[in-house]
């Protein structure tokens, strides 16, 4: 590295840019978008209709938002060298809570359709978020205070969670008939989908916490060495608990978005395999599963990559079932390229190259 900076110039800056942690994820996203553009000339087109923006890009942004929320919540968890595999189940529980509480009936009063919810919408939303938070606290307690391995601790809720969600909905798919609730997942604010603002808000909040408080440093420290960080005076347990609680909360929020978007809650299928997508998004964004290093923007890009990938498989005529296979290949490729063995090989190559010059 020193040699290159001595020679200076554009090359070095280019090399530094290429080594930036976000370079590869961004490159992948851009490549995917260009691939779509090649198949569909109107891919980048965004049109304004009735004050709302429409287009493939907006669609991807909107549909990626539940995943982005879950993945953003998951990022600090993975940064502490943990993982939360229960988020899919938490999404289902939160969606079920909201759907059962709101329910709603459509009455026709004097020829006008009016909607009534079972309980005020704010109460239902708070309850669903509260349930998500509670799930997160449960996971956090098991990890931080009981001291279980994160995979196992969250596995418990992953197994039981779908049962709980079905218990809430009595095994039925609960349909929601309450117009105002649909705004969350399908409404528009200033021309853009409302969900996008929610993601931006969560991202902003996390960014502020990580950049303007010492929390980011603490989380990284816990990820690198939990014992040492404890000796250094970091309240590792409390922070771990909070990190899992936040993950549960953001999964709860994603559950609200999903149930509002599909106007129903299905205990069995809401958020199915979402934990895997979220972990994939976080990994794609350059956050190491070994903990100690994370990137919020990277996670966001990861979520967008996954949604664009889904969009691409649909649009270029590959059967949608192949989506899982494509994702699996992405997992393997990303993991292998991130692995120490390959990194070492690359470093050795670079060193021999530079040494030869």
């Amino acid at each position: 590295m020193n040699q290159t900076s001595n020679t200076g110039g554009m090359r070095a800056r280019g090399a530094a840019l290429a080594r930036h942690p976000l370079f590869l994820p961004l490159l992948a996203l851009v490549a995917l978008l260009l691939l779509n553009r090649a198949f569909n000339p109107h891919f980048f087109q965004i049109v304004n209709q009735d004050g709302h923006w429409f287009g493939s890009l907006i669609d991807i942004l909107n549909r990626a938002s539940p995943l982005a929320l879950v993945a953003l919540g998951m990022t600090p968890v993975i940064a502490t060298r943990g993982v939360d595999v229960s988020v899919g189940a938490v999404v289902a529980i939160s969606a079920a809570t909201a759907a059962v509480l709101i329910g709603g009936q459509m009455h026709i009063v004097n020829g006008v359709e009016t909607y009534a919810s079972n309980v005020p919408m704010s109460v239902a939303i708070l309850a669903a978020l509260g349930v998500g938070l509670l799930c997160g606290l449960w996971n956090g307690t098991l990890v931080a205070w009981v001291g279980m391995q994160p995979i196992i601790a969250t596995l418990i809720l992953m197994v039981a969670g779908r049962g709980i969600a079905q218990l809430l909905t009595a095994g039925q798919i609960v349909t929601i008939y309450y117009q105002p609730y649909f705004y969350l997942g399908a409404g528009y604010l200033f021309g853009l989908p409302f969900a996008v603002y929610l993601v931006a808000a969560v991202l902003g909040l996390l960014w502020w916490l990580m950049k303007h408080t010492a929390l980011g440093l603490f989380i990284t420290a816990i990820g690198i060495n939990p014992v040492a960080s404890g000796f250094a005076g970091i309240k590792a347990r409390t922070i771990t608990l909070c990190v899992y609680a936040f993950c549960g909360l953001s999964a709860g929020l994603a559950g609200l978005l999903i149930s509002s978007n599909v106007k129903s809650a299905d205990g069995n299928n809401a958020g199915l395999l979402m934990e895997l997508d979220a972990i994939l998004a976080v990994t794609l964004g350059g956050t190491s599963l070994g903990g100690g290093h994370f990137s919020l923007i990277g996670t966001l890009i990861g979520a967008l990559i996954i949604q664009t990938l889904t969009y691409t498989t649909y649009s270029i005529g590959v059967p949608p079932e192949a989506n899982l296979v494509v994702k699996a290949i992405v997992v393997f490729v990303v993991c292998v390229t991130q692995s120490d063995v390959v990194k070492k090989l690359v470093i050795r190559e670079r060193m021999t190259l530079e040494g030869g010059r």
Partner: protein
Amino acid sequence: MKPLNSTERFSLGRLFDARLLPLLITLALFLLMFGYGSVAYRGFFSLQVFLNLFIDNAFLLIVAVGMTFVVISGGIDLSVGGVVAVTTMISATLIQNHHLSLWVVTPLVLGMGALFGAFQGVLIQYFRLQPFIVTLGGLFLTRGLCFLINIESITITDPVYTSLAEYRFAIFGCFVSANVVIALVVFAVAIWLAHYSTFGRVIYAIGGNERSAMLMGLPVARTKVLVYTLSGFCAALGGVTFTFYMLSGYGLHAQGMELDALAATVIGGTLLTGGVGYITGTLFGVMILGVIQTLITFDGTLSSWWTRIAIGALLCIFCVMQRLLERHSTGKKRDSIGHQKGVKAAPPARQPEAASLGPNLTLEQPHGV
């Protein structure tokens, strides 16, 4: 990495009974639940109900046995459910649509399962990837392959296959299916492998402390790949028996079976940190899951989702119990977070290498947001 000194070895020996405790609790729990069912429901206490536990869970037992080996070695295999599904799918397609013989198809799918397991094992061992993420990718891949083959469910009507699947062995006026025989053979072989073979001992050694096992000159790399190969083979065999059981191939078969297999393993007293576990315990773990289902079926008023909640609750109780035992045996009550498996194994293995990588890699990258 901490070398076993004499005092610790002594304490391990002293605590052997404590480690057997989960197994005894599992056994007691099984008897209790079966006893409760016998008292509460008419017709519950019969040999056939007991044998049905085996008939309905033979495939789970086979899969869980493979999982037990992986967990003892300190890893995890989340791909088993997908491997079971893809096995049912390939078997059904080849037999039903391509009219191949059962005797050709079965070895083929078993080989494919083992090969897939070996592939995952190589990724885990030689690329130093986390078992969790690799097998997660394996789950995606296998499930996706199912739907690439066929979206619909394929029913098997091949006469040889159905007659074999419906064959019943009589026992004291009751009966078991061929699946049960296969499962029990697997169980017996697994006990021999785990407790009476060199291979088994190396697995326990790796689970106890991988680095020590390596320093002792044990074939760690080969064994770890073989463990995942074994798990892939067991999952494929589980898939074959599942095909016998369902007589169809479908991509949504065995959804969540990896969780059931893991739950059975944990409930059976295998420590998730590796190094401790019993194949017999896994048998009782599977039986307990079966009894929960049978109880809910006999009750009739409880809905099926109570099964999942009950399994989750049991899993929780057993994990907490394991944790308490572990704390007791290591005598460390303070650093609960620091005592996770990843912490124990990863840093010593990585840091010496990082130091030799050159100046830019010794520093962790700053946490750029």
